[in-house]
């Protein structure tokens, strides 16, 4: 946003004299995009008295519930920490207080089930060219204005069509489809935590990997529990600016950073995704700070994906991200020391491929979700032997 300078303001005000006083004051307020004075946040609200009278077949008592008073409970899954009276529904729409017990309404009712290439998540350093059974139930604790899956993230579980797929059935489906992993994705799996956890536990027993594709807005206790069954993750770092987190996503930055620290500490393979939204997440200085923080706190080995934004859902009056800006951000990230930085949603960009951080040679050439060549052998560069971070086997 370009605020009008004082000189410009005086010039214009002189022109319009008294009659322009109102517009003059307005001009100081900002232009049509990314105005700092636009609403402070879009955090969701608790849905009062919208819980069903009794749990349904796809419910089970929720984990991480904190009794508050009488029949009031606090959900301890995510940093919203919703305080729910009997009959209330959490911000995510999928957790309800029914007569003093917190239930999840999203257990075994998968509304999206697909087999995706793992590269689509995106996960470029996790068993390349394998397929992931990708599932979602309804619900999300964010309100992203550019949500790609608003049809399932911004609705109640009762309002979507779904397949009855309880954890054992999910695992059986993954085995039948010969999927190497199960990805908890599309909506926000944090909000159907119990479904994800029970499925992941059973998957682990069958040697199927668990992939968590998330906004990372989770409390430490459930995250620790999750880490016990997790094999890989792609977590969004939507911006490094708390105000933008509140304005575009309805969340806060700090808990997400804590999630990254925990995943790193617990040695989970994870990749980071940042969608570069013009006018909001396009400040080079902010990106530099973000990358420095990543290197300082998480080290240089976690791949970072910069994705090109396209107008969609409610954020449909912005231009797409300039490709040169993505190239520039990739360079900034690499200059900061991050070893694997990718550019997504731009077919043919050199940032689609993996380059060895040791010798600089092309390791994995990607044509979309296909691998045109793969020069990683036993997790190491075929040319120089450098160990490449990731899960390759």
């Amino acid at each position: 946003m370009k605020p009008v300078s004082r000189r410009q303001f005086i010039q214009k005000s002189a022109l319009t004299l008294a009659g322009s006083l109102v517009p003059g004051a307005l001009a100081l307020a900002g232009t049509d995009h990314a105005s700092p004075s636009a609403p402070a946040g879009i955090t969701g609200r608790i849905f009062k008295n919208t819980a069903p009278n009794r749990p349904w077949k796809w419910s089970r008592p929720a984990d991480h519930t904190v009794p508050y008073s009488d029949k009031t409970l606090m959900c301890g899954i995510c940093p919203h920490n919703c305080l729910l009276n009997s009959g209330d529904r959490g911000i995510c729409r999928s957790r309800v207080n029914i007569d003093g017990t917190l239930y999840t309404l999203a257990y075994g009712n998968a509304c999206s089930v697909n087999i995706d290439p793992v590269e689509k998540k995106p996960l470029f350093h996790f068993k390349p060219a394998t397929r992931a059974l990708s599932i979602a139930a309804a619900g999300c604790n964010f309100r992203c204005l550019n949500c790609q899956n608003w049809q399932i993230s911004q609705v109640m579980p009762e309002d979507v069509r779904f397949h009855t797929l309880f954890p054992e059935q999910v695992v059986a489906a993954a085995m039948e489809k010969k999927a190497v992993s199960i990805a908890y994705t599309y909506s926000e799996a944090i909000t159907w935590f119990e479904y994800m956890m029970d499925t992941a536990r059973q998957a682990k027993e069958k040697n199927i990997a668990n992939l968590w594709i998330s906004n990372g807005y989770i409390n430490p206790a459930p995250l620790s529990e999750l880490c016990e069954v997790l094999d890989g993750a792609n977590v969004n770092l939507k911006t490094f600016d708390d105000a933008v987190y509140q304005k575009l996503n309805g969340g806060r930055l700090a808990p997400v950073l804590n999630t990254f620290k925990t995943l790193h500490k617990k040695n989970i393979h994870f990749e980071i995704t940042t969608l570069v939204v013009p006018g909001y997440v396009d400040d080079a200085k902010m990106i530099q700070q973000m990358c420095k923080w990543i290197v300082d706190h998480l080290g240089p080995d976690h791949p970072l994906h910069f994705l090109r934004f396209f107008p969609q859902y409610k954020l449909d009056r912005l231009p797409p991200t300039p490709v040169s800006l993505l190239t520039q951000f990739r360079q900034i990230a690499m200059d900061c020391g991050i070893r694997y930085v990718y550019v997504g949603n731009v077919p043919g960009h050199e940032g689609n491929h993996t380059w060895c951080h040791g010798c600089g040679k092309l390791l994995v050439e990607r044509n979309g979700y296909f691998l045109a060549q793969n020069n990683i052998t036993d997790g190491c560069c075929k040319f120089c032997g450098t160990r490449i971070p990731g899960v390759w086997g």
Partner: protein
Amino acid sequence: MKNRPLPNIEARIRDVVVATGIGSVVTQLLTIREFLSLLNGNELVIALILFNWLFIGAVGTLLAQPLGKNPSVRKLWAASLALVILAPVQLIAIRKLYGLIFVGGSSVGFYPTLMYTFATTAPYALLIGFVLPYSLIVLRKHIPGYSGTRIYVFDNMGDVCGGALFSFALIYFATPFQALAASHLLLVAALWGGYRTSYPKASRWIPAAGTLLALLVLTGALAWEIPTLRPGTGRLAFYQETPFGRLRVIQDQDQTTVFQNGRPIFFSKNPGAAEAAVHYPLAQVADARRVLFVSADQQMMAEALKHQVAAIDYVEIDPALTRVEQRFGLLAQHPAVTAIHQDGRQYLQQTQKHYDAIVLNLPEPDTFQINRFFTKEFFALVKTRLTDNGVLSFAVKGYDSYVSDVELEKISTIYHTARQVFPHVLMMPGTRLFFVCASRPLDPDIPTLLAKKNISTAYISGYFYGDIPLEKIQGLNQLISKTAPVNTDFSPHLVRILLDEWFRVFSASPNVLILLLAIINILYLWYISKEEFVLYTTGCFTMGAEILVIFAFQIFFGYIYLQIGLIVTVFLAGLLPGAILSDYLKKFATPFLITGEIVLTALMIVFLAGITRFPEFMTGSSFLVFGFFVSLVCGAQFPAALHLAGSGRPAAIRLFSADLMGAALGTLVTSIFLIPYVGILWTAVALIALKLISLTVLKMSR
């Protein structure tokens, strides 16, 4: 200061009323365009803006009664001066407050739209509603018994002039602030003429200062044109107002984006979208020689040329858009490419050419204008312009991993509609959902088809199988509802479904508004007299008829800007002779009013018969003649009703407001509920029924 006797008061107030009419119509049209550049431009938003304007105007009119206790010319001058100042302030406020209240770059939902349009237009619309009846009150103070009809006539004269000035001149040559300045200069001059003489010599600095202030605001506002259009990111490289909307080009680093009415429509480096739009249909045609694009950009042309096509015809309704695309390298000139500046549907009606592929690149069918390209009749027309192996392709907003019920209804409706004409319809689900239609089987395996043609791609080759696996296509086909309606020219179901989708995106429902409107209208109807009821229904009928005529005209002849401007103008132009005629015949007010009701009913029956039974006789001028006669009767009813209601001040004010209230409701109900839900036929029947009710009320109360 004591009021001096005013020379030639009637002429002075007449000048002000006419000039106010001119300025207010231009302001109204600019306001609508301004909102369409900021907000979602679907049929509901357009109707809401008009509704707000008319409704607030009606409230302003009603306020003239209690506020008109001590009428004075000076107060009228001051109110009119305030209008001059408010017009540019309103425009600036609309542009600037958006960024203050909403997240920049985002669309907003139904109630925020309602509130925003209401709040930003309220001061001006309230004042404009107030000024007209107040003029009459002031005139009657000086000339007791002054005819309300005459004020009505003057106002209409101004409205017609303002509408014509904007539609046929200002739209081509002026930016919004220039148009405001030009259209209000007359009012400033009229005010100066009258204002000056209402003050003693020693105090003439007051009108001088007021006039100077108005002039300064109008001219000073010109400086705000560009700064208020600048984007939050990137540089405003180009800006132009065209009859079809606002074009802006934003350049940011290596990227150029063309915005039309606030939406990004073309941008550089977008291979995925171009490949999908072109190769999904062209891959199906072994030897594509001739291709027609309805709107396109350079990337699409380049992809089409990979198929060795001999000729590409490119139809774009707005020549300014082509020029902009060419200027910014988004549309290169190529010997195989011919640009045609015409409405796409009209072009297909007129051309004798046959194409191997017709590719539509259009916005969502959420307006009547775009819906015309998604109807059974249009698909049938396209089929006659395709070669035997030819394909039609178009797209709507799609989905990623889950298709919602309302999206499914939309997709099912389009699918069923296309299937009425084409035996084979292939759906390719993605963030844009493509439909490819043909008379012979189609193959969903696009990468293999392209490989056979030796065509290389950046997106399709690498992403297609991951994004659109065969199971996804099969899954969608299984979900298609068997009971979805067929979208036709006269029953635009898609507009309704897309409005539902819009509500769903914003988790909103129009029920609160419907309830509120019902309560307000029931209360209002309870209190009004039979004459007011007649004008209320006539206002409702006229706006409904105008929307119906514009809707039907586009189906018959395509979207032709000048002729649609002409329709809007004739709907105003008839008011004037109607009112004059009726004023002369006021002795026969009651039979006149009853005859008016019968004539309106008959006109609608004739119109309905014309478009449904005798479409071959419906020439462009028949629409104009219909519009003129409807407005003629409407204009004639006001003086007759006024005569019957008594020519006192409250009666005139209440009749003015009844007309506006009816018009407000007619706008909303016709475009949002009647046409999309019951189709054009039943809308016309509903309007006829409305007039029959009004006729019965009139008869019974005699």
